[in-house]
């Protein structure tokens, strides 16, 4: 008879094979303590990760949160290693698959420990909203002046959708801070000019009433109470570029 074990694969098969597969799968359920050798390998890798983090982070590694994090990941790694379905499926896969899974998990954990910046991309530190913010905020807003004298708000992220807000706003913020600190004649100032001119040119593409100037405003707002309606803010123009130069 013909029995379809794998969809897409038509295999001539004995009737009991699928039942055996099911029974084997049922036996693979749940958790089982890993062998001493496996536990030893896990502990060794864990220690290696901790040492690598200590070497990469320098004195910063001594914060208690890092060791706590490490212990948390070790507990999870032990749980994953003890989970029979995963262990069994990976063990019965080929060597490339086993190496890929082990390598991927190791790199993820390494990125989590020694990442935090750009240097370990694509394996970076996952840490969103982990610090309390100040009760007030300051950000930069962009106002353009058109040829006919209209004032229009410019959204840099809308001009370059590849760079979503989290990416581009952060870069513009850093560039603005560096430019203001260095002054208009500095390298940072010129770099910021170039960046703003790129925004201005992109905004002007196909427009009947193009921008002739782009102003950058530093906006301070108190977040307590949270602003829900139109709010007067402390805003000042900190930088400008003109379309001609």
């Amino acid at each position, binding site marked *: 008879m013909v029995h379809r074990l794998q969809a897409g*694969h038509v295999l001539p098969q004995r009737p009991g094979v699928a039942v055996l597969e099911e029974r084997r799968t049922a036996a693979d359920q749940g958790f089982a303590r890993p062998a001493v050798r496996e536990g030893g390998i896990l502990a060794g890798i864990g220690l290696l990760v901790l040492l690598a983090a200590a070497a990469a982070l320098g004195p910063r590694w001594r914060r208690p949160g890092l060791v706590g994090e490490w212990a948390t990941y070790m507990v999870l790694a032990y749980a994953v290693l003890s989970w029979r379905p995963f262990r069994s499926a990976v063990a019965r*896969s080929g060597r490339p698959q086993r190496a890929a899974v082990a390598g991927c998990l190791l790199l993820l954990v390494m990125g989590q420990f020694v990442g935090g910046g750009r240097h370990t991309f694509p394996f970076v530190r996952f840490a969103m909203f982990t610090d309390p913010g100040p009760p007030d905020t300051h950000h930069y807003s962009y106002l353009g002046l058109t040829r006919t004298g209209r004032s229009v708000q410019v959204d840099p992220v809308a001009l370059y959708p590849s760079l979503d807000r989290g990416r581009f706003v952060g870069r513009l913020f850093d560039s603005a801070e560096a430019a203001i600190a260095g002054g208009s004649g500095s390298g940072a100032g010129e770099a910021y000019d170039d960046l703003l001119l790129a925004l201005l040119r992109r905004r002007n593409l196909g427009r009947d009433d193009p921008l002739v100037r782009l102003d950058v405003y530093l906006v301070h707002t108190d977040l307590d109470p949270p602003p829900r309606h139109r709010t007067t803010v402390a805003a000042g123009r900190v930088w400008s570029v003109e379309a001609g130069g």
Partner: protein
Amino acid sequence: MSRQAALPRLAPAHLHARATASSLGLARVLVFGIWLCHLAVDPLQRLAELPRSAFQPPGVLAVVPGRVWEIALRSSSLLAFRFGLLLALALVVGGLVPSQVLLGMTAAGLVVYQGLVRSFSGHMNHAELALLYISMLFVFFPVFDGLTVRPRRTRARPGGRAPYVAGMLAACLVLGLTYFFVGAVRLWKGVDLFGTSTLRDLISSFALQDGRFDGASVVPLGVPAAILVLPPLTFKVAFAASTLVELSAPLALFSRRLRPFIAAGLLFFHLSILVAMQVPFPENMCLLALFSGTWFHRAATWLDDHPFAVRRAVR
């Protein structure tokens, strides 16, 4: 009733216990299909307009010599790269060229693509990274054994269904870990974080940054501003609850009972972020489908039975 007829009614032993070549094939279509849609609407070539001074390649891309970037960052180069990658993705999604080499090159292209957009970043955001890791992982798994348009003559796998089960579980584990990491960091930063107004301040800040500014006043963005009417305690509870959901993500692998709640919780978590902060995570929202084991395999089987699917014989 025959024994075989009763088999499909058995409760699956664990997540993806019944994964087949088609299941992993569907995962391939899902993962690389998301990339295909993502890149199709991304005007990547516009990055050529930005000044070179704003470009700081991160991590592995930092080893590429500056001269190469001078050429790579031209509009024509970026456009060619975009369409080349789109073509490769289409071939991978359809399984038209079921080659692990092509898959490897596509994954490498995706790393470059994600590195490029992060080269103009102030900070490393996490959107798309789980998807990127799973794409890289799939290079080493037999993802072309099922749901391919073009037939691929293949021998039966020595481990039976094990590589398919392992591939699906590894993808779920990687996805779960990316959530778990965030929760763990937040937890070890100190639980007093949840007693602060951090979440409310973040929503306020996003509402202001995306609001209408006229030089003297800001009109905050409508929906987030409306959410700020809620009592402060709501935000503290929501912050703690979302961290709990993130920490529980790996449990979706282990527990059949908790899985639907965790998957629904994560979906709700992403929807809340979208509404309150206008930060979308469409890739992760789609990837949550990987946690729907039984439905996922049913869909894969149904697609495999579809008239367009190709039947292949195993030698």
